[in-house]
């Protein structure tokens, strides 16, 4: 593992984009990408949860390794993620009620976003150290936000165009995602 922090960041952001290349976090990607106004805050909130979850998972992994309890990893990760989402929710509610209301139902749903659990699992599998874990989670979150914002912008434009009835809805979003994913393949090898 001699990846520099910069390589990890670029890889997670573009070349191995969480949504478009690794298929993580597709549910919010397809569900929340209808409007640009909700897509961006959702991306930022998810990034924040990813960062918190990644920090906690790093510490927890050390603890589990110390006590030789690796088989409890999955269960404790998911509990940690659920509680950090709860924490973010409470902090937001206290200090920024406006943003809390804007995000609404999407906030608790971050718990079941596989991108968050994915960050924790991948950083463990690849044995990243502390700095690497942090850059990985921030890069992954930024990549998620980027994909969400791109998709939302395209879908907003698409509402004005004339699409065959047959292709309306999910099929159209999937085709769009395919084309986006195709263009992101151009970044392959960028992070070295």
């Amino acid at each position, binding site marked *: 593992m001699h990846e520099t922090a910069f390589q990890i960041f670029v890889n997670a952001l573009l070349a191995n984009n969480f949504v478009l290349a690794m298929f993580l976090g597709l549910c919010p990607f397809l569900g929340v990408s209808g409007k640009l106004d909700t897509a961006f805050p959702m991306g930022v909130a998810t990034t924040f949860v990813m960062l918190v979850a990644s920090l906690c998972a790093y510490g927890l992994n050390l603890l589990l390794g110390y006590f030789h309890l690796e088989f409890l990893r999955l269960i404790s990760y998911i509990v940690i993620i659920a509680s950090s989402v709860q924490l973010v929710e409470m902090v937001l509610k206290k200090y920024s009620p406006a943003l809390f209301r804007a995000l609404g139902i999407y906030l608790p749903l971050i718990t079941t976003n596989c991108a968050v*659990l994915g960050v924790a699992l991948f950083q463990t599998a690849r044995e990243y150290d502390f700095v690497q874990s942090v850059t990985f989670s921030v890069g992954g979150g930024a990549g998620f936000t980027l994909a969400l914002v791109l998709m939302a912008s395209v879908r907003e434009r698409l509402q004005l165009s004339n699409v065959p009835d047959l292709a309306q809805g999910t099929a159209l979003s*999937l085709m769009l995602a*395919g084309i986006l994913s195709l263009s992101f393949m151009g970044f392959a090898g960028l992070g070295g």
Partner: protein
Amino acid sequence: MNPTTAKTWDEFMEGIWRQNPVFVMVLGMCPTLAVTVSAVNALSMGLATLFVLVCSCGLVSMMRKVVPKEVRIAVYIVIIATFVTVVDYAIQAISLALYDALGAFIQLIVVNCIILGRAEAHAAKNPPVPAMINATGMGIGFIIGLFALGAVREILGAGALFGVSLFGSNFQPWVIMVLPPGGFFVLGGWLLLFSWVERRKRRKQSGKLGEATQNA
């Protein structure tokens, strides 16, 4: 068919056709698209999900009167995570190659919305046996969806099915189909096909209706 069997059958079939998790409800997309590069991967992922789904729905349903409402989601998640850990270790013991191919996506079954959705929407309100029957239907529906994707992607992208070459050595594989964009395209294609069939059926019905009114 007497009413009880009919109802059971209906609950079983619900997940396979009317509410197919992949094609109708579009749930559990992440594993669906990520592991379906070949038919074998798709089937084993489907089986793993089926096992977790049936076991956790059974357990959730048994505990539905004990668990307080406020903490139910957390309890469900812990139950699901337990069974996923079991599956994770089992696959690792059975086939290491398969374990490497599926990678982190076995553990990501925990956050598959199909399972939590079934636990919350069905198992928490019904006794164990119907809950497990319904879960089996859903799981089989999920396997069918995964297989439909995996088979198409393997045939187009590698010219093979279950690792057996289909078209001989002259076939030029359509590599994009086994790469990430192919997953989106194939699923989009299936959805288009289904909506086309649905619309044709509806048009035929309304056509018949029109004829009937004319004749009368």
